[in-house]
């Protein structure tokens, strides 16, 4: 295991301290329970937007705390959903009197811990709503399973809902927008390499030199299937095909195209992939209205990428374009 860390048990706290040292103008870091709030929290009269999940997905979610996006993020241990104490403390810290929205990625652990936090918050008289993202088309959707994972859409949704809250939308409205983004978004990912959870000390799976995992999530787990490594163009088909078929996206649609690196992917490769995706979408008569290219929802040092497409309309486009001022996403400010 080769990592720039001091010790496996200290990684999350050390990184939080780094965030605190780097971005004190934007965010404040609290410890035990661990959570990151925007520096000016709580914002009076504004709906508080909170997310959280295991660490190892940086910059998600801590890097998205700030004006126009999240009010707080709750980082768990690496790949382990945070505990209710964190979400409860964060909920109280950002409650500006207009209620708090929990953005939860659909994993059993995340869902249950956020649920417990919401129960505790409700018991204390706080107004909490939740939205669960589940955009990963690699996972079959069925009422008999845990359902689809929440992946790339979460990033885009946090930006859009954050903009809505910043503009004064109430809790119900924030929830509506969050559900809309989730409903209109789909993702799929692949890995060239596995990643190593610091405590585990060895990679989560083995891959041959000419193999890739297709249909991975963001927790270093194996994907749906192994495939022979192939060209960027073929990989693009493998990821974009199921995404487009699922919603389905249609000729004439305008989308936000998000090409995401898994943590160990160099930018030159992301642009090669974006080029293939742009060609494929053009062939299908789909217009890319906005894009995001970079490593925003990651699996530690895993090499690979994911695509997320969200169908855009005027409302979502405006929310996407609104100013954002966070450590990881910044424009118009």
């Amino acid at each position, binding site marked *: 295991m080769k990592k720039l860390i001091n010790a496996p048990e200290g990684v999350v706290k050390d990184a939080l301290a780094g965030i605190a040292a780097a971005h004190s103008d934007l965010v404040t870091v609290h410890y035990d329970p661990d959570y990151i709030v925007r520096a000016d929290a709580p914002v009076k009269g504004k709906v508080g937007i909170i997310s959280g999940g295991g660490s190892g997905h940086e910059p998600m979610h801590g890097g998205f705390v700030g004006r126009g996006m999240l009010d707080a993020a709750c980082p768990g241990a690496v790949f382990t*959903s945070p505990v209710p104490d964190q979400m409860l403390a964060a909920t109280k810290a950002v409650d500006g009197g207009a209620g708090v929205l929990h953005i939860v990625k659909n994993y059993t652990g995340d869902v249950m811990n956020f649920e417990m936090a919401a129960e505790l918050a409700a018991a204390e008289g706080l107004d909490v709503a939740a939205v669960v993202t589940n955009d990963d088309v690699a996972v079959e959707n069925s009422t008999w399973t845990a359902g689809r994972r929440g992946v790339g859409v979460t990033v885009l949704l946090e930006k859009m809902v954050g903009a809505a809250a910043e503009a004064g939308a109430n809790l119900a409205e924030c929830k509506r927008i969050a559900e809309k983004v989730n409903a209109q978004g789909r993702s799929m990912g692949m890995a060239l390499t596995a990643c190593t959870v610091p405590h*585990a000390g060895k990679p989560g799976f083995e891959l041959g030199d000419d193999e890739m995992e297709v249909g991975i999530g963001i927790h270093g787990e194996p994907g749906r299937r192994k495939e022979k490594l192939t060209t960027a163009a073929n990989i693009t088909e493998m990821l974009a095909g199921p995404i487009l078929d699922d919603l389905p996206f249609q000729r004439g649609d305008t989308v936000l195209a998000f090409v995401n690196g898994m943590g160990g992917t160099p930018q030159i490769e992301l642009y090669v992939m974006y080029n293939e995706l742009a060609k494929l979408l053009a062939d299908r008569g789909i217009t890319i209205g906005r894009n995001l290219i970079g490593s925003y929802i990651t699996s530690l040092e895993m090499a690979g990428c994911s695509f997320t497409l969200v169908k855009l309309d005027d409302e979502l486009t405006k929310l996407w374009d609104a100013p954002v001022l966070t450590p990881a996403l910044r424009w118009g400010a």
Partner: protein
Amino acid sequence: MRITVEHVIKFVEGVAARIKEHRDELVQLDSPIGDSDHGVNMDRGFTTVLDKLPTVADKDIGTILKTVGMTLVSTVGGASGPLYGTAFIRAGMALTDRYELTPAEVVVALEAALEGIQARGKAQRGEKTMIDAIGPGVDVLKEAQANGEEFMSAMRRSVAAVEEGMKSTIPMLATKGRASYLGQRSIGHQDPGATSSFYIAQVMLETVEGIHE
């Protein structure tokens, strides 16, 4: 048989030690079909439980178990934190103000624990989770109680059923929890949560055997 506060504390300490011992094994089990954290999660939780135990050592068994559960909820995270946490809290709620337990009360508490896990996690048997280990164990105890079977013998059979249940997860297709994302590829691996449940059951049996001797 008299089960006292001291026995319960010994049991909890024993679980903490057993989990630490098997930490890496539980991580490795969580690697092919999960995210390589189950052992670390459980160990982090029970290590904190050990720190907390002295503060409730003079309290009733219900309070002790609720404290264990709340500590697990607050420190484990992931799927196992709310599930095991809820299990201990529910068991504790079933034993409020008790300083000594009869075997019948133990069975009631275990039933409550199982119900708590099911209420929180909404898994059925056969979905490749800890339920597949704990469920059969509780079945045996209830049935033994109905048949008037001696408690020690019932406990032994119960833990054997837990072990068998744990092993039964190997050929299962996961439809709950993280392993479900793997589809067919989840088959052939033993569920980590079922395995930690077996270790907890093992320590329970050993504790009871200790009282018996």
